[in-house]
């Protein structure tokens, strides 16, 4: 029978390797059996209290238990919405509003903080949920009614108007993505993942679901190690991690400090990377240090579940050459659409396929802007996702990323709308106008503004509203906002000015 629920991955694996450790972090390990039991119990607890077919907020440490909580939500027919303690309170408040969630699950460590968030619904402790007795009849009934287009999670991404957008994805999309990603990257039972991505991102799907599908293992790498390259490399070897799917900046942290020669993470055999351009010099260092490993460049937006394209980077690259984003996964199609809405060799990337997600939760307007009718098909309804990324095809038919259409940037794998930073700046007192620009070489966001407010005050205000990775590195007060001849803020001029800072 065709798989229609992501939980089938876990249910098949737990029969084969119940005792094997599925997920571990510094303080906790969970076997597949434990994961399965805790997930079912959590699902039972939610159902017994009347929660089903609705969002459940998860505010927990990045831990094996958090994975069990995610799966518990799905057992209850709910969909999980991961929150992170590093999210500022105002962003979390937006998420409360958008989801209207009635229940939040936290753990012992996050409980105190969870109670300060001003959440109106029930706050449930994971420790209680996981020890709830299994309600088999309730779980069976949910499963019988669940269909594969039901959502399983919502993850929030930056929105240019200052309100984050919640991308909702269903079983079908995640299964399609996991099957195709796994066959490209060749995961199996011996795969040992080293997870870097935060759990409030789609990027962690790459480890969570294949671990359950194959009975593989996933080690959650302590986040502070990403500051200390030698320790990070030693950790990889010590934990026998052989597969990483990391943002480029995590990899370049190791290579740029010349750690690869003397402290080579030699256990690695698959290195997948993405979300940002890999500087060729750094890539070549990796390739040289690990000649037998596979390197795969991945590309894709959250709105198409995870990754949509892949490229086997099986050679060294010349300085100035771009590593292509390659070709789409099986069952995904990429359309390059030019300004006239026609198919072209260079244009905006539109994505077609089962992996295109359900849209932005509770935001029909934004959904209809980006999830649009396939411009090449006037015959029946068919939604495709319009990425805002511009790409071209090279001579081998591989896609090469060129630029963004708008003011979205990537920083340490995080997608950031400069417009969101501006919208949040304007909320502050004593601000007349502002403009955020990105200084790529220094990987720094520079915010210019005019108004009464002091630079320190603007900085402090933004800290309250924006996640850390979105904070401007530099805030500069101007007497007058430079304008272009047609009266728009002169972004080009300010970009140049930012480089001089």
């Amino acid at each position, binding site marked *: 029978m065709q798989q229609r629920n992501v939980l089938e991955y876990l249910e098949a694996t737990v029969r084969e390797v119940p005792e094997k450790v599925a997920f571990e972090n510094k303080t906790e390990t969970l076997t597949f059996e434990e994961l399965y039991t805790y997930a079912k119990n959590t699902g039972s607890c939610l159902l017994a209290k009347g929660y089903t077919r609705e969002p459940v907020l998860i505010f927990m440490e990045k831990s094996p238990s958090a994975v069990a909580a995610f799966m518990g939500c799905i057992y209850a027919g709910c969909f999980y919405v991961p929150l992170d303690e590093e999210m500022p309170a105002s962003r979390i408040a937006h998420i409360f509003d958008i989801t209207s969630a009635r229940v939040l699950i936290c753990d012992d460590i996050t409980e105190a903080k969870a109670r300060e968030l001003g959440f109106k619904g029930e706050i449930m402790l994971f420790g209680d949920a996981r020890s709830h007795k299994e309600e088999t009849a309730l779980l069976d009934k949910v499963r019988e009614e669940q269909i594969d287009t039901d959502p399983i999670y919502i993850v929030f991404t930056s929105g240019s108007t200052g309100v984050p957008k919640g991308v909702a994805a269903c079983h079908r999309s995640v299964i399609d993505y996991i099957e195709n990603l796994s066959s490209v990257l060749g995961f199996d039972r011996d795969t040992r993942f080293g997870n870097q991505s935060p759990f409030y991102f789609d990027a962690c799907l790459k480890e969570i679901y294949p671990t359950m599908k194959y009975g593989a293992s996933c080690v959650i790498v302590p986040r502070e190690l990403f500051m200390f390259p*030698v320790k990070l490399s030693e950790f990889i070897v010590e934990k026998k991690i052989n597969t990483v799917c990391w943002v480029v900046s995590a990899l370049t942290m190791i290579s740029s400090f010349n750690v690869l020669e003397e402290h080579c993470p030699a256990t690695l055999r698959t290195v997948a990377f993405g979300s940002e351009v890999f500087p060729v010099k750094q890539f070549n260092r990796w390739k040289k240090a690990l000649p037998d490993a596979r390197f795969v460049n991945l590309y894709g937006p959250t709105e198409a579940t995870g990754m949509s394209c892949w490229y086997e980077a099986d050679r060294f690259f010349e300085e100035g050459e771009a590593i292509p984003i390659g070709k789409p996964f099986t069952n995904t199609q990429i359309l390059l659409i030019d300004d006239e809405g026609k198919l072209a060799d260079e244009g905006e990337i539109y994505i077609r396929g089962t992996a295109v997600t359900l849209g932005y939760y509770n935001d029909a307007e934004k959904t209809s802007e980006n999830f649009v009718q396939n411009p090449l098909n006037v015959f029946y309804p068919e939604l495709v996702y319009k990425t805002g990324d511009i790409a071209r095809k090279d001579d081998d038919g591989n896609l090469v990323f060129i630029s963004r259409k708008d003011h979205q940037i990537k920083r340490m794998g995080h997608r950031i709308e400069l417009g969101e930073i501006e919208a949040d700046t304007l909320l502050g007192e004593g601000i007349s106008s502002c403009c955020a620009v990105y200084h790529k070489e220094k990987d720094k966001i520079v915010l210019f503004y005019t108004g009464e407010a002091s630079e320190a005050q603007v900085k402090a205000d933004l800290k309250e509203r924006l996640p850390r990775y979105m904070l401007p*590195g530099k805030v500069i007060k101007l007497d007058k906002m430079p304008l272009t001849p047609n009266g728009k803020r002169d972004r080009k001029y300010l970009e140049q000015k930012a480089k001089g800072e």
Partner: protein
Amino acid sequence: MEEIRAILNELHDDVDYDTCTTLIDDRILDSFDIVTLVAEIDDKLDVRIPPEQMIPENFNSLKAIAALVERLENEI
């Protein structure tokens, strides 16, 4: 010491660097900050911090960072 303080102030100007001894443990500095800090120390003080010295103990306070830089300067 004062140059390092200036670099740190650029990163986070709301921290009392004279008293704080948990810059890493309390996640005040993240990996962004460390990369910037190491690059700026190289740039402005002409001191390269070898990867082996990139351990939490050396970055938990202004004093520890300054001591590290001093040790490295004396080695040359």
